[in-house]
């Protein structure tokens, strides 16, 4: 079984998020639509690799951010967050 995936939280998505947002995103605050918790993207729990990145709320498991890169497109589903506060 391939267990080698070293990162299990939103710190891992740092590279791809930087590509999309042109900002360092792991310290950005995401407000979860499921439970209202506000926390850093770096503290979200990461799933979905290698098909994509699913960052879930550590309190309620709602997918807060979902990212999939396919040839020619990067798709981002932000329906799990109500607000993203990015240090600028």
């Amino acid at each position, binding site marked *: 079984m391939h267990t080698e995936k070293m990162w299990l939280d939103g710190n891992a998505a740092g590279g791809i998020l930087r590509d999309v947002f042109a900002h360092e995103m792991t310290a950005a605050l995401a407000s979860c639509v499921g439970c209202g918790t506000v926390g850093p993207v770096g503290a979200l729990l990461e799933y979905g690799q290698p*098909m994509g990145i699913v960052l879930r709320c550590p309190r309620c498991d709602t997918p807060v951010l979902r990212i999939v890169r396919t040839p020619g497109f990067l798709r981002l589903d932000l329906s799990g967050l109500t607000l993203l506060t990015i240090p600028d």
Partner: protein
Amino acid sequence: MAEAPRLPPGQYETKDFPVLSAGPTPRTPLSKWDFTIHDANGRSARWSWDEFQTLPRDTPVVDIHCVTKWSKFGTKWEGVSVDSLLAAAVSQGIESGPFILAFCDGGYTTNLPLTDVTGGKAWVAFGYDGAPLPPEHGGPARLLVPHLYFWKSAKWVRGLRFQLADRPGFWEQLGYHDRGDPWREQRYQGDP
């Protein structure tokens, strides 16, 4: 005549069984588990775990293909065919539709054409390799649709919903193909 190739284009064979997941492993106790088929009219047919276990079962041996490029040959499963579930549902007044959305504990969904889960092509599997299906591989039960990429074989499945339109599920919304035939390399939306 040459034997048909076993490996679809772009795949490699593995002897492992990699675990991929879009979320944490649910732990539904069998006493709370049920399987429901819903139609577009709001009717449903439901089986508890005990009722499910009384249904006729198959032991398919199949090759499986993951969109992340690994393929595993000769996997052994035990489960109830979707054909028999749908037949039972229809006899209870459920109206079928052209498309299905499989739904699961944890919120995962995947969409499929009805024709891809009928005619002996799909099961709801609760046994793997002679033992109960382990939670990390989708236990208590998962959908098994081996002729399509394995993200369609939804883990922790709790039912099927007939759809009149092919509304995309979890990965399909994010760019994966609505059908997912590995022999045509239908990995992503837009692949022919």
